[in-house]
């Protein structure tokens, strides 16, 4: 069991988004992508920041400030990337999700991918 414990679903979504965005992962882009992944639920920018802070405190991600940009009123962006521990945690979490899906597929059949059980 990893030292940081299991990831929550929202943490998993945020980490996935950072991997997906690669070099363009900062507050606004992460928020947009997380909001898209979490549909129909709406996600606030504040919830994304709080999760990023928590993931950074767990040592799963690293952040750094960019140079100021004019479209942000001359302010910097804080970019994020996964640390090796974050990669491992996400990998373990996704494997567990896959096992859950496989069990449910056995129980519910292919309906799991077509709107779920009645």
């Amino acid at each position, binding site marked *: 069991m990893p030292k940081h414990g299991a990831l929550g679903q929202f943490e998993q979504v945020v980490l996935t988004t950072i991997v997906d965005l690669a070099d363009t992962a*900062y507050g606004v882009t992460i928020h947009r992508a997380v909001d898209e992944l979490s549909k129909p639920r709406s996600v606030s*920018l*504040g*919830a994304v*920041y709080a999760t990023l802070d928590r993931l950074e*405190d767990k040592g799963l991600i690293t952040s750094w400030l960019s140079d100021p940009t004019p479209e942000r*009123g001359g*302010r910097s*962006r804080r970019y994020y990337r996964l640390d090796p521990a974050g990669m491992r945690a996400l990998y373990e979490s996704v494997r567990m999700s896959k096992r859950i899906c496989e069990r449910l597929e056995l129980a519910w059949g292919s309906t799991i991918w077509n709107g779920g059980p009645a």
Partner: protein
Amino acid sequence: MERGSGMRSNPPAVIELIVGLFVPPLVREQVLGDLAEQYTSPGQYVLDASRTVPAIVVSQIRRTSYFPLWPAIGLGLTAAFGLGAEAWWPRAVIPSVITLLVFMFRDAYRVPDLQHPRRKGLIDVAIVAGTVLASEAAVGLCRQEWLITSEGLRGGALALAVLYLLRLQNPTGRVPRSA
């Protein structure tokens, strides 16, 4: 128009200044930048800020307040402020809770000053002492019997001195990662 595309305008400086006052300094740069990047209208900006800032403040409090120590500190403060009082409730509890809350918000909003930690610590304690005295003035207007005794004031001053020394041990004000 999709947010962040096409012609871009910046939020009004006054609104941005007010929002900036509520955002902890350590994260102000990126938060105001992100909010500015998503700006479409003053109403939308205020709504976004009102949904974003409270979560950021709570997150900073979580990062800077070491809650496992709170019961011990709270008990110590209550004992100190309650000195010389036969009935210490709520006489000693009010200044103790105020002390903990002011330190909590002060930590969330402070910028670590590693060059002058003693001065910064003294300012923190002075702000707490001032707030406690102001709250005592307010309490005195309502319930004279809830005021701290003179022994309690001395005990409280001693407790704040101990807290000052404790806080010097962690000048960054960050909760350790393993905590």
